[in-house]
């Protein structure tokens, strides 16, 4: 019981295997902390206006422009700072939405069973059998390119794993004695779900979601890279890499946004791993 009363950061810290806590763990945690802080205050502390085009084009990294300038004379460093909010924020939004949609469908399928289950699971199969590129592209094209629509498009391909995992958890819970007794006591399905099922499903699902943030960030920046996500001039990192491709010899334009994506994804994956190891040592939600 003492365990659960610890603060969350301390639990996460303890969840990190001792071998990694130093030095990789420290580095990761520091980077993660930096990104989270930047996500909150990034736009306020940019040395230049991330949208202003008032600097010379293609300045290499230097004193005034730490990471150089891009093809329109914008400060790459400022854009990366301002972009943290876009990339990280949307990744979180996507994960939350996938989790909610997937869990609702999973609970409904698992709890009600029979044809409801069959219909929902076959629909899940359908979405999973669908090529991700095409589904996301056509959705983005149908809705028009914008960041929120990119999230919607990504959502369509991201919820099925949650539905499956949640459903299988519900299935095993349904036959537990306390759930069955709750129903004997005359709980309505809604109450039974709310009281007996959700609390037991929530933990593992959250752990699964936390491990998914990195993947979500990759998916969204990939869509932006294809021109289906962030609308210009938004400083989204995938979009920055995309416009930097043809300027590969001005390496700073593409390398830094790419490293930003990489470090953010690594950190979130690392934190997700740590959380999972702690709450779910056997990896049941993998």
């Amino acid at each position, binding site marked *: 019981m003492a365990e659960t009363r610890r603060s969350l950061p301390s639990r996460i810290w303890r969840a990190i*295997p001792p*071998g*990694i806590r130093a030095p*990789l763990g420290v580095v990761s945690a520091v980077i993660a902390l930096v990104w989270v802080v930047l996500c909150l205050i990034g736009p306020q502390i940019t040395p230049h206006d991330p949208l202003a085009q008032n600097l010379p084009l293609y300045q290499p990294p230097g004193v005034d422009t730490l990471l150089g300038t891009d093809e329109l004379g914008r400060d790459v460093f400022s854009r990366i700072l301002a972009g943290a909010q876009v990339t990280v924020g949307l990744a979180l939004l996507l994960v939350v939405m996938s989790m909610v949609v997937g869990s609702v469908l999973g609970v409904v399928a698992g709890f009600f069973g029979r044809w409801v289950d069959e219909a929902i*699971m*076959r629909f899940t*199969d*359908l979405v*999973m*059998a*669908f*090529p*991700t*590129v*095409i*589904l*996301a592209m*056509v*959705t983005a*094209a*149908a809705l*028009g390119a914008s960041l929120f629509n990119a999230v919607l498009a990504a959502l369509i*391909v991201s919820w*099925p*794993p949650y539905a*499956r995992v949640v459903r*299988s958890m519900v*299935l095993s819970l349904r036959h537990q004695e306390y759930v069955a007794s709750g129903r004997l006591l005359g709980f309505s399905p809604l109450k039974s779900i709310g009281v007996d099922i959700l609390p037991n499903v929530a933990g593992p699902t959250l752990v*699964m979601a936390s491990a*998914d943030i*990195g*993947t979500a960030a*990759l*998916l*969204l*920046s*990939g*869509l932006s*890279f*294809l021109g289906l996500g962030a609308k210009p001039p938004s400083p989204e990192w*995938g979009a920055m*890499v*995309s416009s930097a*491709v043809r300027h*590969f010899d001005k*390496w700073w334009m*593409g*390398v830094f946004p*790419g490293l930003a*994506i*990489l470090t953010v*994804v*690594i950190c979130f*994956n*690392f934190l997700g*791993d740590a959380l999972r190891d702690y709450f779910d040592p*056997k*990896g049941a*939600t*993998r």
Partner: protein
Amino acid sequence: MPQPSVSPASGDNSDPALPSAGRQGRRSHAALLRYLGKRLVISVFLLFGITLVTFILTNLVPGDPVAAAVGQRAAEDPAVVAAFRAKYGLDLPLPQQYANYLARLVQFDLGTSWQTHNPVAKDLSTAIPATMEIAFAAIVCAAIIGVVFGAWSAYKRGKITDQVLRMVSLVGISVPTFWMAIVCFYVFYYRLGIAPGSGRLTPGVSAPPHVTGMYTVDALLAGDLRAFVDAAAHLSLPTLVLTLYTIGLLTRFSRTSFLEVLDSVYVRAAKAKGLPGRTVFFKYVLRAAAIPILTVVGLAFGSLLSGTVLVESIFSWPGLGSYAYQSASNLDLLAVMGVGLFVGVVYLSINLAIDIAYGFIDPRVRVG
């Protein structure tokens, strides 16, 4: 596509539709056949579902494919537009159009692409092998390296080797492929000159006679060593880029699987009996972990097939990913449906194969 979106959670090994006898005992062949029959019927319905969803989505896109298909100038002439619509049946009501498509589909006619002016089947017959070649190479490399890393990591659990390998695999699944492709091409080709340029072959090296469409295989079949070396060299960089992610994925997943098996009672018992480590590994551990790992390998392969678009564009590789991308952005309806169907068939076949594998050889049944 961004990143292959396979996560091990999608490994469908908890499908309750699967007769649950598997875990307790051998199921009868009749039950298995009935189950397979049901799965096949469902698969066919799923494929229809894929075409239906694609059809609806593509028709929801604001924008008329005709102008893009016949050309801006010809689209000024209403007679030309009308003729085009009539030729492709676009003047019919949507349900009728869809019915016509299905009617052609059952005769294995995928229709004609408006973009390339080729039959979709012909386009696919060149695009699929090009992508298959990278996907095969990537999945073989990734499976070997990933499983070795996973096992190694599991055996060294908690030690520094384990930590390093876990970190490496974590980086692997965190790299944005689209970024890595350009970085690799720049470094290994442009800067160092140790990788060949873009495309599937060096210009001047003639393609081997078409058998499978995969140049390395066809070159070997034709005994053309020069073409083989050239094709393999061109294959190396795109494969490297795609392998990174899959190695990370497989290392992580197989580590978990090995750990589970290593913790199991029978492996502990085998060890306690004093069996040599090698025997325990090959006879018990590998066999038990094989099926979950193969499941993920299969799913990763499926997602590689449609997940190569960004890599293909950098390496000028005329594969399925770029075909899908171009078709979708050009509202080339029939081509989009063709790609969707193909990927759907592959995905469903892989899943079916996995389920059959689970049905026939549940490791715990045999080993126990």
